[in-house]
């Protein structure tokens, strides 16, 4: 707990200089962050705020789940992964993207209301509007995009070829330029067990007082 507070205080100077876009909601094992403007890596603790261009890296046994502040879009990084979180604040909304250098990442992206959530790797770019997917990226062998729900458009950066990937399908994009879509097999989700994304329910909860002074609570749940 003390370490958590000290860490947050130490970096509050840097954090205050930029708007926060997400929060680390769970970490496990070796997880580090390089905050924008700093050069050294720090251990990432649950509850830590994250800003545009912060770089997160997980070790062999690491795991981190981060949640965007505007719509609870969740990104989970598994072991041996490296990405940069990107977010452009526009009022209370965030234009989101991820720059994955390598590793395994799962995301539960909420509908972006006319905007897109871009996920780029050294080999591919994916345009996501609202979906649940798993990504495995390796600069030397390429990427796989496995759609658990929704729709995503994947572009191979080498050839420029694009394809739509639907629920139950996996797109494989390689540095040699191939881009193929096939039915998802159990092997495609090998290693993502820890990232099983559960449907997140959002809710509005408020109280009103009637003429007699009685408090009533209204709860609206939505996804």
């Amino acid at each position, binding site marked *: *707990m003390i370490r958590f507070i000290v860490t947050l205080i130490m970096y509050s100077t840097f954090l205050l200089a930029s708007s926060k876009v997400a929060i680390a*909601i*769970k970490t496990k094992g070796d997880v580090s962050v390089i905050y924008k403007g700093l050069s050294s890596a720090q251990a990432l603790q649950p509850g830590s705020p994250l800003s545009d261009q912060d770089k997160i890296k997980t070790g062999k046994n690491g795991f981190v789940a981060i949640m965007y502040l*505007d719509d609870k879009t969740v990104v989970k990084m598994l072991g041996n992964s490296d990405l940069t979180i990107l977010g452009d*604040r526009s009022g209370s909304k965030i234009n989101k*993207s991820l720059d994955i250098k390598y590793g395994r990442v799962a995301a539960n992206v909420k509908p972006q209301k006319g905007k897109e959530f871009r996920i780029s790797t050294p080999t591919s*770019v994916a345009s996501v509007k609202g979906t649940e997917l798993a990504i495995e990226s390796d600069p030397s062998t390429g990427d796989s995009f496995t759609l658990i729900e929704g729709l995503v458009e994947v572009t191979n950066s080498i050839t420029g070829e694009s394809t*739509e990937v639907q629920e139950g399908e996996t797109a494989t994009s390689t*540095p040699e330029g191939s881009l193929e879509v096939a039915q998802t097999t*159990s092997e495609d989700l090998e290693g993502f067990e820890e990232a099983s994304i559960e449907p997140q329910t959002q809710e509005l909860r408020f109280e009103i007082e009637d003429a007699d002074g009685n408090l009533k609570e209204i709860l609206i749940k939505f996804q």
Partner: protein
Amino acid sequence: MIHRPIKAFIAAFSLISAILAQTGVLIMSPEPNSAISGDNVLIAASLIGVNNLNANSVRVMLDGVDVTDQAYVDSDMVSCLLEDIDPGHHEIDLVIDGPVGSTKWNFSAIGKESILNYSGRIRSSNSMDQIDDQTLNINKMTIDLKGSAYEWLDLKTNLKMTSQESDLYQPRNVYGLTLGIKDILTLRMGDSNPRISNYTMNGKRIRGMDLDLSYGWFNFRFLKGEINRAVQGDLSKAYSFDIDTDDLGEKYISLDRSGYTYRQNVSSARLAFGRGEIFQWGLNYMKARDDTNSVDQLLLDAEIIYEPDATGSVEGLETGTVYTISELGTKAQVLDGSDWSGNGPKDNLVISTDLGLNLFSKRLRLDGEVAFSMTNNNIWGGPLTLADLDTLIDDSVDNKLSSFDLSDLPDPADWDKYLIINSNLSPLVPIDINAFGDSSTVDLMDAIFSMPSLAYRGRAITNFYGNYLAIEYGQTGPEFNSLANPYLVKNKREWSITDKFKLFQNRLMLNLGYKHQDDDILTSVDNVKTQNTLSLGFNAVPGPGLPTLNFTYRSMDRNNGITDLVELPDMTTSDNREKTQTNNLMLNVNHRFDLVWNHSISGTFVSVEKEDLFSDRSTNFVDPSMTTRVMNVSLITRYGSPLQTSINLTTNSSELSTGPGARGTQDFLTANFGVKYPLFDNRILANGGLNYANGSGMVDMSWFGVKGGLRWKIMEDLGLNAQGEFRSKQTAGVSKNTIIARANLEYSF
């Protein structure tokens, strides 16, 4: 006194203000009414939707106790990590001064997480392919279990059983079990696909055990098992035969064993230093050897169909009759293994070292490997001894092999545990001996880097400022061989440079690449084959609502180094020259738009032109030139309802050589229509489609197909996927049908 309408307005305004302010708080953790572990409970909420927030006014209460002093609070968010919370029901109250007021939510803390966790997936799949007159049915069962205990022990199984399993082939069933102790020790038993290094062992399945120890900077891996299991072969094809004559002049059948596979045992190890994050240096070895005892010389039930040949016939045997070896008795003799004409048993040793460096936070990656192999292509007869070597060429002078002094050499027979050395060793002399001695005629470094059984590669990858640059160099000698890595392309030297630029926040990507390949490895190569490939392209993704544009151009030159015609004894010539240029162009446009419904349209144009750069060919030469044009348009439409349709049209036109001095054209048109519709709250996804193809030119054909299926989520953890397709094909007036059916049932727990 306030009028009633004004009171109503004030009440409504207050309510709307309260709602708007309240919606500004977004609860992030824990989820309301969720049940979570009491360890490290994170309370978090987003405040970016709250206007005019005074962060100093925010208070976090847990069960009425103020825990704000343990929280991080600013104008965007609040978070508070609590290490240990008692099991039971809890209430969080986030209090913000002003119109936002109090936001409350509840959660339950449960005890410590179970020390035993497990999950699994069982999948049964069946397929039937009836193509023309051939039918193939395959049934498969896959069981994957995964578990952990005490946070340090992991267990995983990989079990697959298929109806394709047969003693006549290598295993199709998979039996794998993996045990892990934290990230320190991993033990894999049964079937696995180990990757030791690029050259030694790189993903081929073995059956045995694999121990992987990783402790800090120290890494050790050892595996032992078999690459191939022994296959005795089909009893009807286990022997071929000749008719021979014995010392007494009697004819007999000389049986030669065929259709077998030796059991191939393998052991491999890797010792590496470094965690791999920044640095790792590894030393690897791989040893594989065929077990000569694993194939039975005598298969008493093998079937031999007797036929006399030009050398004569065996008395007492009837032409066309099937005999077993027992029935043949003394009329047959089975050759010893060393005389079998099939592939000889092999012995293979590979050693290698590799190095990997990650610098500048992995923005610069350097890695490479050097490997050397020795392969004995027939170990029947065992190793040569020094005495064998002494008399190998002549026996006039003791301890001399020709002029080479053997007296200081170790006896090869003493090393047979590591490698069986005899005349079938490849390479017999691993390096050009002309590089040694005072009168050397070859530079030593040239001799080393052109060793026929040497393989090496190096790579540098940089990733700075959105620029991904990769440079690679590699060479695999013609005699380099790893039995545990049989897919490696031999006799190839190549280097490449590729660069990818990302501009305008990844909205524009430029690609540029060049690759050179040749086989100029040995100093004795007369005609060097080369292939140069230049590629460039761009990918533009302007943004939502705008079309994406992709363009790729690739030019490939091939030359086999032969410049002259070969004159044959009959005074004709043979033209083996190859010098071609192939240009490949691809343009693709994708666009999503709304017009009554939501559409996604895609158009692709591909052009391939291959040109023969020699103009002085004879009229009967088979011209390698060819031209292909492909155009494709597809439209996917999502209607307001869950209905989705897709239409795809493709034309393909090719012009190519059909034989000596002859050329022809072939045109294809294919059209597909597909539809998907989810039913019963997405529990069933039904799909169907029609497809049509027509070809004209060198081959006239057409086919029409219909397909359909469904994916049914029977229960939360149980799903069924069934698909079927029927095609009626007409080729040159002959009609044939194809039926394909697939079904799988999957249960997860």
